[in-house]
């Protein structure tokens, strides 16, 4: 488990509710995305993060709007947790000109600087070196902004991870490296690709703190993210957080999971963090079942509105191929 965190911050009731709100927003958005794909209304590769909601939700409540994230193809949950508006998000997934990327990037390259969603990459590991650049900018600007680099367990075995963590540590950059360890890299089990039992242990090789976190426990993620973000804002440098979780829907939509043991998956789904956290909020009197149901309904309405909006948007004109290649439009 590498290091154990000393003084653990814990979220107050309002913050816990905010974490839950983000988790539900992710879950509803994911569920309805898969529904739209099944209905053939969206045609695009989709990498569901169902099961991983806790991680970006408990982190995002600690981030300001101008804090930044760099994420990956499996990153829509990270964006939704960062409160990226759903209408332009959906318009993009639907390849419409009103999409955040005018339909040019699609789900794997969603970008929305206004909410701090700076880069979404389809290349394993590449969110990390770029996140360092935003960290450097924060130092130059003298702000207390932090940047979160999200990546997977498999990505911890590629060169970009190593170079990025080393540079971030030498330069004391305000970057938090968040590994969402769901136990699989496409179809490869963690231990068949990774030489260390806990990715967090690698932090020691970069002289930075590293923690293995229960990625399905919002309070554990919150406590560790709080420490990492404080450290970054204080100018003390980066932290590596390994958040252990599970992806319920396999690697990509349509994945038949042949490579994983049925029981393993069943057990994970059995331990679904969402209903568990919901029950905790009710038990602790943070919110009533009715209030939470109302919240869910509101969010579902928001997602459906975004879908309807997106489906009604125009497709981009072919001239878009000549735009945004360079600042100056390429002549026809």
């Amino acid at each position, binding site marked *: 488990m590498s290091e154990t965190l000393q003084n653990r911050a814990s979220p107050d009731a309002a913050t816990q509710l905010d974490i839950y709100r983000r988790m539900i927003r992710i879950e509803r958005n994911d569920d309805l995305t898969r529904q739209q794909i099944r209905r053939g209304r969206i*045609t*695009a*590769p989709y990498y569901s993060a169902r099961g991983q909601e806790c991680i970006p939700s408990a982190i995002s409540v600690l981030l300001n709007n101008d804090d930044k994230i760099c994420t990956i193809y499996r990153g829509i949950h990270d964006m939704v947790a960062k409160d990226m508006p759903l209408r332009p998000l959906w318009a*993009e997934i639907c*390849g*419409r000109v009103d999409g955040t*990327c005018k*339909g*040019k*990037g*699609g*789900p*794997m*390259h969603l970008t929305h600087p206004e909410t701090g969603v700076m880069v979404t*990459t*389809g*290349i*394993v*590991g590449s969110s990390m070196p770029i996140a360092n650049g935003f960290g450097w900018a924060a130092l130059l600007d003298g702000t207390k902004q932090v940047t979160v680099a999200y990546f997977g367990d*498999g*990505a911890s*075995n*590629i*060169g*970009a991870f190593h170079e990025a963590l080393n540079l971030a540590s030498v330069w004391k950059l305000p970057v938090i490296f968040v590994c969402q360890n769901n136990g699989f*890299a*496409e*179809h*490869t*089990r963690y231990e*068949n*690709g*990774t030489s260390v039992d806990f990715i967090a242990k690698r932090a020691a090789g970069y002289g930075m703190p590293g923690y293995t976190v229960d990625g399905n426990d919002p309070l554990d993620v919150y406590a560790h993210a709080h420490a990492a973000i404080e450290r970054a804002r204080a100018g003390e440098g980066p932290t590596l957080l390994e958040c252990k979780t599970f992806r319920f829907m396999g690697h990509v939509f349509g994945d038949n999971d*042949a*490579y994983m043991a049925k029981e393993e998956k069943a057990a994970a789904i059995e331990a679904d963090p969402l209903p568990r956290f919901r029950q905790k909020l009710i038990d602790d009197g943070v919110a009533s079942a009715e209030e939470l149901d109302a919240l869910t309904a509101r969010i579902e309405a928001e997602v459906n509105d975004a879908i309807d909006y997106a489906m009604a948007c125009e*497709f*981009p004109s*072919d001239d*878009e*191929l*000549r735009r945004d*290649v360079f600042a100056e439009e*390429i002549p026809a």
Partner: protein
Amino acid sequence: MSTDTLEAPVVETVKMNGLQAINAALSEAMEADPKVLVLGEDIADNEGGGVCGVTRGLSTKFGTSRVRSTPISEQAIMGAAIGVAMAGYKPVAEIMLMNFTTVAMDMIVNHAAKLRFMSGGQSQVPLVIRTMTGGGNQTAGQHADFYEAWFAHTAGIKVVIPWTPGDMKGLYLSAIQDPDPVIIIESVKTLFVPMDTPVNQGPIPLGKANVVVPGSDITIVSYGQMMFTVMQAVEELTAAGVSVEVVDLRTISPWDKETVLASAEKTGRLLVVHEAGRNFGPGAEIAATAQEVLFGKLKAPVGRLGAPYCAVPFAKKLEDAYLVQPPEIVAEVKRLMAI
């Protein structure tokens, strides 16, 4: 469509797609030669036998010491393949998609392609790099590029882009036994489209183009999944009374100058069509060579069609506009023929 050159006798065929053809090639090669190895991400059966199933069954049949799934570490994959090749094995190393070759370019360009030369012939790197790419599935800017021009410009590595399943099998059989590095770029479309394929397709020599359709008015040179588009255009052109000779280049480097130039000289017109970007693309080398060798012998300038100067877009509508379509080919042919 038969994959044999025109002279060859018509042979018995079966319907097979690219996945099956490559799987058969790898299986036969491993069966016949214990030095043949396969490595890459998710390629063993425990990991599903490859993201598309190309390598399915191989690890079960030949063992995981010869068919190894790897971490997501393309530099390590290429490095291991280069070393084991220098030690006398014949590895087939998979880089899942062509855009991911960008993280392994040092191993491929500075090492695999150069070690024989830099060592004065002491080192041999009989390596096959398998990779896949191609537009049409809305995988957007980082999953569909054709970068064969980079490798064709790099001395010491051969570049193969098969179109039909039969060619895939035949070219793989040759590449695996080739004493030098070969990168084979698989077109996504071909992997899933069943086509008539010669029963027990044997090796097809590298560096030989295939005259798929004979014609007399104009020569169209293309390769990979773009051949599907070309064939559609040719149907329309034939109907319009234009006699097109279609040459499937198959090997981009070293390319078959003899066949291409002989055809262009015969028809007097040449059009190169590829999915790769037009600017500084593979078509430029073919056009530059043709204008030199056939100076004064061509009835029209050599035409080139390729992707516009931008990244592969996501929206279906934009992706369709990005990819060369049959009407563009028809129009370009008519322009070159001044009809």
